């Protein structure tokens, strides 16, 4: 009797958590889509402002391709380590998932530092965001992406802490799934950034 009751209760919890899980994930997905529209707007601003250099530097004069390849590879690799972490979370493998999350955090931080270094260099040689329309659009786009990355990095630290304190519960799992969507979304936006801003800017 008691056993039956417990089983029934577990079933309801399972059902509810599944429902909750999918609702939260779908809500987060909708947020990502609206974020996608923000980035589309910023890209269109960049494309419109691309030729307004105001006697300052144009794109190809300030891009450092070695740095950009390095940044792209860091971010791609971090996406990859995050998937490994997710696979380990699904196996309830706490130590390994924390290890892969930490590696993701380190890779994301190195990406961010490289990008900040690049932008800082531009500002120190006098090509700050107030120099021309092109540079304003460029800085706005890159810094919006960087702010998203900073948010995701803080979120990764919070998730590591939550895994340590709570273990892998349903809530923590949902949060990690949301974080994984966010992190991969940032990687997709970066693919657009390096293709449209850097490569097409260089070609045209």
């Amino acid at each position, binding site marked *: 009797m008691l056993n039956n009751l417990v089983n029934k209760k*577990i079933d309801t*919890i*399972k059902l509810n*958590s*599944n429902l909750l899980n*999918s609702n939260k994930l*779908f809500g987060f*997905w*909708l947020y990502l*889509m*609206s974020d*996608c*529209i923000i980035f*589309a*707007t910023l*890209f*269109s*601003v960049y*494309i*419109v402002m691309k*030729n307004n*250099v105001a006697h300052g530097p144009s794109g190809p004069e300030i891009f450092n*391709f070695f740095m*950009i*390849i390095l940044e*792209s*590879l860091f971010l*791609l*690799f971090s*996406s*990859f380590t995050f*998937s*490994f972490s997710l*696979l380990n979370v*699904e*196996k309830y493998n706490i130590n390994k998932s924390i290890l892969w999350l930490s590696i993701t955090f380190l890779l994301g931080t190195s990406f961010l530092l490289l990008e900040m270094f690049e932008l800082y260099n531009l500002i120190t040689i006098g090509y700050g965001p107030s120099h021309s329309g092109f540079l304003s659009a460029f800085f706005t786009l890159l810094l919006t992406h960087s702010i998203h990355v900073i948010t995701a990095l803080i979120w990764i630290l919070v998730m590591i802490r939550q895994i340590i304190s709570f*273990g*892998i*519960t*349903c809530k923590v*799992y949902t949060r990690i799934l949301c974080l*994984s*969507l966010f992190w*991969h*979304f940032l*990687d*997709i936006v970066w*693919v*657009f950034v*390096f*293709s*449209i801003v850097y*490569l*097409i800017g*260089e*070609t*045209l």
Partner: protein
Amino acid sequence: MNYCHIRNTSCFFKKYFLYIINFVILIILTVLPFMLVIRKFFSKEITLILILLCLIIQVLIHIKFFLHLNLSNKYKWNVISIIFAFVISTIILSGSYWVIKSLNHNMYSVEV
């Protein structure tokens, strides 16, 4: 309660393997356009088309294997929302490009 219903985990190593293959493909697709631009193998138009092709393939791989999106009934609304976002983005991009282009045309500005 430490109970959580988690996705199918039976084919753990198969998943690892799949991720590694995807990773290699993505690295190639990332480095290839940079090489095309730096070394200037082809003319501008062909380089542009190749860059866009690499971009589209990369995004599709990301959506399929990292965001785990597919066309099943479970993800119907996710697909609908991604299509909606795509339509809005296209309107914003093409619309602003069109407006600015005709603005430049009507102002007789000097082509840069």
